[in-house]
């Protein structure tokens, strides 16, 4: 077990290193630079040059890369060129929004996806099953920004039921009602990702429901609901967990778009702004954090298997 964790950790570090290097190269090959964006279209080339100079962006790219990597290993993520604040503090400021959005969307994904999948699996190939599958797939076939805009127009613009955009910290203000700003975004984000989970839940359940021990349970005269919840679902949970963790990676991507639609101050909109403004340290910081999250979640998923299914051994 221990050697497995060490090996995985080594692999994770290599992956993360590749991610930061690629990000660095990518960002520094983008045309345009922070000074030209900040000073705007009417600045003279000398003014742009001077500002880049004082930010140290005119140094050779290898020197900058070396410095960047050294800093990372010292835990220094750099300062945002725009906001003139440490990147980590900006990311942590904005993490709250993304985390709440992620959790609420996951709630949508799990409640719609898992329950839909289970219901569909009870009577396979019935019209209920087909309908649920169709709805789930239709959800996965709609771009989340399209769904977001439609929901916003209807619920905020026309019916005035829910706020259209923005999000104020819950942790800072202690006001849990602020979460209502995240209802529309999490539906837009969650619904389009629920399909995958629903299909996986359905097929895993079908798989399990046909197993002998489930039939045994039935034969013992247990109620069908009990069979489904206690015996079948527990064993179907592994593949469902996997797919939920896969869904996480997809959701990070979709959240970038959703946060932009609803003007949510999260990590996703931060990175888009960062790219458009050429705020290199911010982009690198976010990519690094997301990459770490991704590998850690993958790792945790693998460990969860062991918990859910003791037969799996880590060799």
């Amino acid at each position, binding site marked *: 077990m221990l050697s497995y964790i060490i090996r995985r950790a080594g692999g994770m570090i290599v992956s993360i290193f590749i991610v930061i290097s690629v990000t660095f190269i990518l960002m520094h090959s*983008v*045309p*345009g*630079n922070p000074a*030209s*964006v*900040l*000073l*705007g*279209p*009417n*600045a*003279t*080339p000398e*003014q742009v040059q*001077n*500002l880049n100079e*004082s*930010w140290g962006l005119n140094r050779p790219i290898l020197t900058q890369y070396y410095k960047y990597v050294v800093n990372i290993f010292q835990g220094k993520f750099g300062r*945002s060129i*725009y*906001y*003139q*604040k440490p990147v980590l503090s*900006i990311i942590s*400021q*904005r993490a709250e929004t993304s985390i709440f959005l992620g959790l609420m969307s996951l709630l949508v994904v799990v409640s719609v996806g898992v329950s839909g999948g289970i219901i569909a699996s009870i009577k396979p190939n019935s019209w209920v099953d087909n309908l649920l599958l169709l709805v789930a797939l239709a959800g996965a076939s709609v771009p989340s920004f399209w769904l977001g*805009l439609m929901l*916003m*127009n209807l619920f*905020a*613009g026309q019916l*005035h039921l*829910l*706020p*259209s*955009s*923005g999000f104020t910290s819950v942790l800072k203000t202690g006001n849990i009602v602020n979460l209502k700003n995240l209802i529309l975004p999490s539906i837009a984000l969650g619904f389009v990702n629920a399909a995958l989970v629903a299909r996986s839940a359905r097929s895993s359940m079908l798989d399990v429901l046909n197993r002998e021990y489930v039939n045994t349970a039935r034969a013992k005269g247990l109620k069908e609901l009990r069979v489904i919840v206690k015996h079948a679902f527990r064993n179907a949970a592994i593949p469902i967990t996997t797919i939920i963790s896969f869904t996480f990676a997809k959701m990070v991507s979709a959240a970038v778009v959703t946060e*932009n*639609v*609803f*003007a949510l*101050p999260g990590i996703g*909109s*931060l990175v888009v*702004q960062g790219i*458009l*403004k*050429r705020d290199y340290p911010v982009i690198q910081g976010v990519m690094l954090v997301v990459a770490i999250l991704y590998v850690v979640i993958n790792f945790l998923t693998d460990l969860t298997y062991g918990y859910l299914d003791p037969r799996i051994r880590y060799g």
Partner: protein
Amino acid sequence: MTERGRLNMWRTLTVLLALTLVMSFSLAAADEKQSGALNVALASEPGTLDMALSTGVAASIPARHVFEGLFAFDKNYKPQPMLLSSWELSEDGKVATFHLRENVTFHNGEEMSAEDVVASLNRWGEHGLTKGALWSRVEGIEQVDDYTVKMTLTEPFAPLTTYLANVYGGPRIVPAEIAEEAGGEPIAPEHYVGTGPYKFVEWKAGDYISLERFNDYSNPPTAPSGFAGRKLAYFENIKFSMVSEAGARVSGVKAGNYDYATKVPTDMIATIEGSAGTEPVITDHPPIYPIMLINTQTGVLADAEMRRAVQAALDMDSIMAAGYGNPRFWKLDGAYFAEGIRWRSLAGADAYDQADPEKAKEIAEAAGYDGEPIDMIVAIDMTAQYNQSLVVRNQLRQAGFNAQLETFDKATFFQRRNDRANAEWELAFSFYSTTPDPSLVLMLNEDYPGWWDTEEIESLKAELNTTTDFEERYGVWEEIRELWYEQVPAIKFGDAYQLHVRGETLKGYGTEDQPVMVSPYFWNAWKES
């Protein structure tokens, strides 16, 4: 006590009494108008609020509440003293003496003195984006005493106060130590210390900028007019949120999340007028000018004859409709300055809006045009400009030009457009706000993309800057406009207005004295509960 002394005493007493009355009156009225928070949705996030290094409208909106200059524009865009009690210009027009108002406090509690003004102006002179024509004539700035600053010029400069009042890339007064520490870099947000009616509180990256009423604000004695005069801060705080999606800004005002939203697509006016609780705000005072820059130095349009051919081909009606939608929001106009501005001149405007593809074809053929590509560049995030470029492309193709359109994100677009050494474009699309003086019109600058650099314009420009009499300068401007239509360094499509939205409870903005200006401002405004 002499006769004169007594008179002076009486005068002082009368003034004091009057002041007390005015103050108590305005305080009483102020009580009813005291409001809590104002929520404003901005379309884009500013890069910095340090206006010396920013020409962005988005930046200027919060910045106007925090920082002030020596002068400010009144509702007619005439510069009025703001941080000054008075100023004078020497007989020969070469020495300007500025008398600062006393007891003006910065947000850090220190009093503004001549030292701060000198340091701020010097920093701007070194790094400011629009120092150009003025600073090349400044010989020196010196502090005479705590409240007096003297500026010496090498030659008279007519638009001096205009340059000092200008906010876009213009000089704002900050404490000397902050100006010196910042140098060529933008002032860090934690050092945003100005003299304005609101002080900076927080900039949450990509989310909002929040300001708070500055209780020790020292008001100028003059009546409110545009950006100048008395500024009463009725709102306890102001929050400028960044909301990039136009639909979200409008829905937000409708749902009561915001009190004001900037830059809304003009076609939305029907839904805004039709829905309870929202009022449209049309910023037509002054309009903005959508303009197509032409590369006069390289490529097929380096030939002025070819530029005239392009000019002949354009049908401005469709171009403006594509860019600005609803006809209430645009107007064809062959003059550079819009109606109501004293610089307005229709000289040369016969060549505007010819909509004559046949003529264009003939001119181009005569100039030897043989299907060389005309590369048009535009930023996709500037929607109106992109929309116009598409129509221009079609019109040019109709006139037989091989017009090619390329779209970029803003940063890449500006980088390409400004790259003179290897300019790979013939036409570039932008828009400009009205400048208070013709000398500030960017296209006149030989370093500005398009790079209009002929003998004729150089000599006219020199004349414009050194002449001080308005009538004479107006004459020069008319000549410049004639030349403009002949040499075609850029083509202005028309006047365009922006649509903003306000919640109907927001009062005191868009009035006689506080009209809708180039960008919104919220002192003297309040919210009805």
